[in-house]
């Protein structure tokens, strides 16, 4: 019984991590109808920024995390203003080709600069090991992830629901042309949101170094997971991807634990089945675009 709860907790932690990593992608797709396969590269950037700061420059882990966010967000803004912006109206094929090109470039560049072996971030002692909660072993690191990601999710929901920016964003997602007509500066909303999504990805990348493993091939290895979250969860809200991430996280952990022989396929099969049943994702709107 205890192990089921531990696995469940691990799955939830994994799922929330996936959510933080992937929600930027969901918003980009829902908002700009842009298929950004390079999303994982921003996560990787954040991870490496954090790693360099902590391992090489001796920064404390919790101080480096915000920098991972900021660093990735800055890279995101730079690329959005220079490159991505011109591709919003292009076909999905063009967007796919472009982002694949970016992925290849980032993978090769990081391989060249940082080497190809896995990078570990030195964790503070407080995050190592487990604590015992009612007889259930809870990993400290994973607990931290649940806390941080949980807070982030709540924060996102609040921003979306309660702030003016949030309502502008929701309007722009719903109908960009109408939003422009209402005086909303849609390009600005796009740029900011894209950067924010990249920042979140960067933060997620830093957090995931310990759990998922950080190496130059990270964007390629985990691209499919982000895409699954977005396709299954739909891109018209953040609750969809949130639930999809949880589902995915739990399914993956459970799969690897209980049926290790077929572990990874659980995810792929679940995805294919869900897409068969609901081609627009579990929570997506019937795609009008």
């Amino acid at each position, binding site marked *: 019984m205890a192990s089921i709860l531990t696995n469940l907790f691990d799955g939830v932690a994994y799922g929330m991590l996936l959510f933080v990593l992937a929600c930027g992608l969901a918003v980009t797709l829902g908002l700009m109808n842009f298929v950004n396969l390079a999303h994982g590269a921003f996560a990787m950037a954040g991870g490496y920024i954090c790693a360099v700061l902590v391992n090489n420059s001796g920064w404390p882990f919790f101080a480096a995390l915000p920098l991972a966010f900021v660093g990735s967000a800055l890279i995101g803004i730079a690329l959005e203003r220079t490159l991505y912006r011109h591709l919003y109206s*292009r*076909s999905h094929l*063009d967007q796919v*080709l*472009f982002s*694949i090109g970016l992925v290849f470039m980032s993978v090769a560049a990081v391989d060249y600069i940082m080497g190809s072996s896995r990078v570990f971030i030195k964790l503070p002692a407080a995050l190592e090991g487990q604590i015992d909660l009612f007889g259930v072993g809870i990993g400290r690191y994973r607990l931290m992830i649940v806390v941080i990601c949980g807070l982030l999710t709540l924060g996102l929901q609040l921003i979306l629901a309660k702030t003016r920016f949030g309502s502008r964003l929701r309007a722009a997602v719903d109908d960009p042309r109408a939003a422009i007509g209402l005086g909303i500066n849609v390009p600005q909303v796009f740029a900011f949101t894209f950067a924010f999504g990249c920042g979140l990805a960067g933060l997620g990348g830093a957090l995931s170094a310990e759990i998922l493993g950080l190496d130059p091939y990270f964007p390629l290895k985990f691209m499919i997971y982000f895409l699954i979250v977005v*396709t299954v969860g739909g891109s018209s809200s953040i609750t969809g991807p949130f639930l999809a991430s949880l589902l995915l996280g739990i399914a993956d952990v459970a799969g690897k634990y209980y049926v290790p022989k*077929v572990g*990874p396929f659980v995810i792929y099969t679940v995805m294919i089945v869900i897409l*068969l049943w609901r081609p627009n994702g579990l929570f997506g709107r019937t795609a009008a675009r």
Partner: protein
Amino acid sequence: MTALSDVSTHAMASARWRIGEVAFWILALACAFLFPSRYLIMTDIVRLGLFALSLDLILGYAGIVSLGHAAFFGVGAYAAGLLALHGIINEPVIALVAAGLVAAALGFVTSFLVIRGVDLTRLMVTLGIALLLEALAERFSDITGGTDGLQGIEMQPILGLFAFDMFGKTGFFYSLIVLFILFLLARRVVHSPFGLSLRAIRNNPLRAAAIGVPVNRRLIAVYTLAAFYAGIAGALFTQTTALASLDVFAFERSADLMLVLVIGGTGYLYGGLIGAVVFKMLQELFQSITPQYWLFWIGLVLVVIVMVGRARIHRWVLFVPNLIIRQFAGRKAVVAVPESEAS
């Protein structure tokens, strides 16, 4: 009835063999004699061309964007490898066809998933299937040899007569002949009413259905055919190199294929072949500059091509080749999906 004769002439015009096409194939054959020391790389090009041709069938003609075409390549490769390794079918040509049929079966089964949903769903499903197969191949390593791949494949002589040699000469002619035969078949299909209906479906599926085209059935058929071709390409790989490893399912393969078609253009069958030649030359070039990080340059090429615009690139850089394309197909090459389409 001049109207009738006009119609007949024009209707048949696109299917006629053009001088450019004939020249292309003569040149391809001549390469065997012009470059006798480079059989291996030329075989690579031929095989890549066939693989790209298979993707062109669904991308350029039916408009299906697939990120996981390597799935069929991989299945064909492993099928051929296993058939040879365990002595189930010893004669290469029969094994080739058998491997192709296995891939076609997979294509048929997965086609039902692919015809549903929008662009993004299709991308996901095709990618997911390829990754699933890669994971399967890794998991069942006792059959597939895992990361090391199948070891110790020995190929029997083709038709009992032509043994595979060390220099790759047999392999090259074998691959070239297979490519030519499959090309002829593809050419026939493309210029038939079926092929025309595919182009109509790509252009406007709503209108196609509204004139009575059973859209789904046609898509399933062409997807299965494309899987067959890709499977044969994979089988050729294994048969000519005596290797089959997890690499055959790699995402990079599907991505390279996209680049080949982006370079060569889609929708006129020769795009995959011409693109394969250019791609291999680029690959050689980049690998000589930075052998370990050539992936970077490929990525850069992709980014630049998309940023500048595929249509624009095709107009400037390939101005002369477009003249050639008019020779081949009597019309300008169509870039895969109309530029402004944002769906």
